[in-house]
C-alpha cells in the first residue's frame, strides 16, 4: 500500500512551534511555581528568613507608603490575613477589595477592577479568584506585578513555598537556601482531592524541583491517572498505607465540595480508605510530618486527634506563611522593575 508508506514518511515533517509555558510579564509576579527556578526559590527563602529576623521597625520602612491591593473573589481567612500582615509588616498600605463588598458584585469585569486599582495607585495586586488562569488576565491587562493567592483549581504558589519552608525547618534544619538536591531522599505523599486542589498542583510541581519525590494518593474520581504526567518526580499510589510507609511528609487535602460539580462521592467509603487517623499514622508513618493547607474538616480527611497531635505541623505552616509572603510582596515591588518594563515594552 503506497499510501501507508507515504503516510509514515510524512509523520516526520515540520510542525508549527509549540508555545512554551509563558513567563510572567513582570519579574515580581508569582502566578505559577512553573516560573520559580531553584535559584528563585532559594532567593525567596533567604529573603523570608532575612525579613523574619529583621527589626520590625526597620522592616516597616521597606515599603512605607507603597500601595498593595488584595483582590479577593473567594472568601479566605488565612491566606488573606497572612498576605495582609506580610504587607503591613513591610510598611505598605493595603486595601482589600472582596467580591462581597464592591462593584464586582455589580458585574464589573476583572480587567476593569484591575485597571481601577491601578488608577488608585496600587503597585501590585494579590489575587484570589475562582477561575483558573485569572492572574494571567489581570497581569496582561494591568501590567502590574500579580501574586497568585489561589486561582480556581490551578495553583496556590505561596502555599507551596510556605509548605516547603515548613518541610525544610523540620527535615533540613539550618538550611535557608535551596538547590536541586536539597530534598533528595525525601518522599512527600499528598492525599485526597488532588483533582480540584490548587495546593496540590503547586506542591507537586515545586517540591520535585528540590529533589523530592512526590506520591499522589487518592481515589480515581479525585486523582486522575494523568496527574502523574504533570511534571517530573511524580507517582500515583492509590493505597494510602503503601504511600505512607515510604513518606517523611504526609500532606492532607480537604475535599472541595464546592468544585465537585456533580461528582458522586461516598464519604464513608472515602474516610475508610483515605482518612488520616491515629491508627494509620502510628502504624504506617510514625515519624512523618502531618501537613494540611487548611481549612481542615475535622473528622473527614483527618481526625481531630491527628490535627492536634504531635506530628501535626499545621499551625507552623500558618506561621511560615507570613515570612514567605513578606518575601513575595517585597520581591513584587522591588524585583527587576527594569526587566518588567522591558517585558511590557516588548509585548505591546
Amino acid at each position, binding site marked *: 500500500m503506497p*499510501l501507508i508508506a*507515504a*503516510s509514515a514518511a*510524512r*509523520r516526520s*515533517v*515540520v*510542525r*508549527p512551534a*509549540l*508555545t*512554551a*509555558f*509563558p513567563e510572567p510579564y513582570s519579574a515580581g509576579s508569582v502566578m505559577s511555581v512553573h516560573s520559580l527556578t531553584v535559584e528563585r526559590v532559594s532567593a525567596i527563602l533567604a529573603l523570608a528568613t532575612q525579613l523574619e529576623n529583621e527589626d520590625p521597625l526597620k522592616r516597616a520602612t521597606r515599603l512605607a507608603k507603597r500601595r498593595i491591593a488584595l483582590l479577593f473573589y473567594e472568601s479566605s481567612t488565612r491566606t488573606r490575613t497572612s498576605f495582609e500582615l506580610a504587607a503591613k509588616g513591610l510598611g505598605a498600605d493595603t486595601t482589600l477589595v472582596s467580591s462581597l463588598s464592591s462593584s464586582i458584585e455589580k458585574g464589573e*469585569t*476583572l*480587567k476593569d477592577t484591575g485597571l481601577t486599582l491601578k488608577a488608585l495607585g496600587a503597585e501590585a495586586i494579590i489575587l484570589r*479568584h475562582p*477561575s*483558573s*488562569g*485569572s492572574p*494571567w*488576565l489581570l497581569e496582561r*491587562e494591568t501590567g502590574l506585578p500579580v501574586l497568585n493567592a489561589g*486561582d*480556581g*483549581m*490551578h*495553583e496556590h504558589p505561596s502555599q507551596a513555598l510556605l509548605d516547603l519552608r515548613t518541610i525544610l525547618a523540620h527535615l533540613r534544619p539550618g538550611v535557608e537556601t535551596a538547590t536541586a538536591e536539597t530534598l533528595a531522599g525525601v518522599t512527600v505523599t499528598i492525599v485526597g482531592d488532588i*483533582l480540584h486542589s*490548587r495546593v496540590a*498542583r503547586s506542591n507537586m510541581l515545586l517540591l520535585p524541583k528540590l529533589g523530592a519525590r512526590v506520591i499522589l494518593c487518592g481515589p480515581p474520581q479525585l486523582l*486522575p491517572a*494523568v*496527574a502523574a*504526567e*504533570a*511534571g517530573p518526580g511524580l507517582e500515583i499510589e492509590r493505597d494510602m498505607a503503601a504511600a505512607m510507609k515510604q513518606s517523611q511528609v504526609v500532606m492532607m487535602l480537604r475535599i472541595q465540595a464546592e468544585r465537585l*460539580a*456533580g461528582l458522586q462521592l461516598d464519604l464513608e467509603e472515602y474516610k475508610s480508605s483515605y482518612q488520616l487517623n491515629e491508627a494509620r499514622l502510628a502504624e504506617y508513618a510514625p515519624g512523618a510530618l502531618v501537613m494540611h493547607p487548611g481549612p481542615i474538616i475535622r473528622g473527614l480527611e483527618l481526625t481531630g486527634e491527628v490535627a492536634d497531635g504531635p506530628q501535626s505541623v499545621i499551625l507552623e505552616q500558618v506561621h511560615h506563611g507570613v515570612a514567605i509572603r513578606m518575601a513575595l510582596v517585597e520581591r513584587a515591588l522591588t524585583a527587576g522593575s527594569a526587566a518588567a518594563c522591558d517585558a511590557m515594552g516588548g509585548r505591546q
Partner: protein
Amino acid sequence: MSVILIKGGHLIDPAAGVDGLRDVVLRDGRVAEIMAAGKAKVEADAQVIDAKGLTVAPGLVDIHVHLREPGQGHKETIATGTAAAAAGGFTSVAAMPNTVPTNDSPEITRWIQAPERKASVRVFPIGAATRGLKGEVLNDYAALKAAGVVAVTDDGHPILKDSTMREVLKNATRNGLSVIQHAEDTRLTGGCSMNAGVTAFRLGLRGMPPEAEYGLVERDIRLLSELTREVNGSKVGHLHVAHTSTAQAIAAVSQARRNGLRVTCEVAPHHFLLTEEHVRAYNTNAKMNPPLRSIADRDAMIQGILDGVVDAIATDHAPHAAHEKEVEFERAPNGITGLESALGLSLRWLHHEWKLPLGRVLSLLSAQPAALLGLKGRGTLTVGSFADVVVFDPKAEWVFRAKDSRSKSKNTPFDGWTMQGKVWWTISEGRVVFKGV
C-alpha cells in the same frame, strides 16, 4: 455590460482539470471564455487584470462561518464578515444559523440574503435543524429550502437525541438538504473549556474528552446507516461532520465512506495547526469548540487532509468582540476568526511545508466544499460558471496582523504568523470586491 479580462495568469481549476497559463474572460457575472494565454482580445470596455506570475483560481468557498447577523452586530455584520471573506479570497460563505434569533424561518433566511445587508460575496444561509437549536422540534425544511438554505444544522449545539437526529436526517434527505452535525456529546463536556488531558489537568481546567466528539460521529453514522437500509439505499442522505478535531472521528468518517455512506467532513486550519499546548497562557484566542486537541489528533488532521479523507477546509470563522474575550478563560466565549488567514495558512503549511499540490489545496478550499453543499456554478471556472475568482501570488510571504483585519473582531491566534500567498484580486460574480495593495 461589465467585462473583466484576466490576462496571462496560471489558471488552476481543479474541478475542470485545468492547470496552465490561460486568459479568462468574465462577462456579466459569468465566466465567458477560457483561452490559451495571449489569445483573448481586449475589448474596449474591458477591465484588464494583468495576472502574469500570479495564480488564477475559483473563488474560495467556506462552508462554515458565523456572520452574527441578525442580532449580534457588535461582533460582526454580514457586511464586515463578507468583506473579510473577500480579503481572504473567499467568494462564497455558508452562514451558520446560531444568530439572534436563530435562523428558523424563511423570513430570516431571506433577510440574510437581502441586498440591504451589503454582502461583498455570496452568502448561502444554513437553516437551524431544530427550533431555537434546542434539539427538539424540527423546522420546516421545505420552506427553508425554498427560501434559499443549503443545509441544516444546530451548530454550536449538537443534535443529541437519537430520535431527533433520525427525524432530521429523514426530513433533510426528503428535501435534498445536507445535515451538518456539531459533534459534541454535551453530557460529557459540561463546564469544560479545553481538551481533556495532562495540559488541562496542569492548568486546572476541566477537559472535553475526545469521545464526546467521535462518540457522536459514530452514533450519527449508525443512524444514517440504519436509515439508508430502511429505504434500500434509494435516497441516500448526506451527513457532514463540522470542524472535525479527533483522530477517531476522521477514522469513523473514512470507514463510513468505505461502507458506501455519504458522510463528509471538514477540518479548520486551527485544528490542523495548533494543539492544546497553545492554551498554556490561558489565551482566550486559543479557546474554541471543539477545542484544540492533542499533538496526535492535530497530526491526524494533517494526515486526513493529505490522504484525501478530509473533504473541505472550513474556517469556523467565529468573531467575538474584544471585551468578550478579555475575561477569565473559563468565561470566554468559544471561537476565533479565520476568513483572512485560511488561504495563507493552507498554502504556507499544507502546500509549502507538507507538499500537498497547489491544486489539491485549492480544491479543498473551493471545488470540494462547493460540491459538498451542491453550490452550482461555484468552486470552478468552467464557461458559464459564476465569475467568482481569486487571483493571488502563490510565492509571496506576508505577516498576518489581526489589527488590519476587515472583520469587526480581531480574535485570532494567528496574529503575527507568516502567511504564504498574497491575494491581489477577489472577484465575486464579476465585481472586484477586494484589491490587494
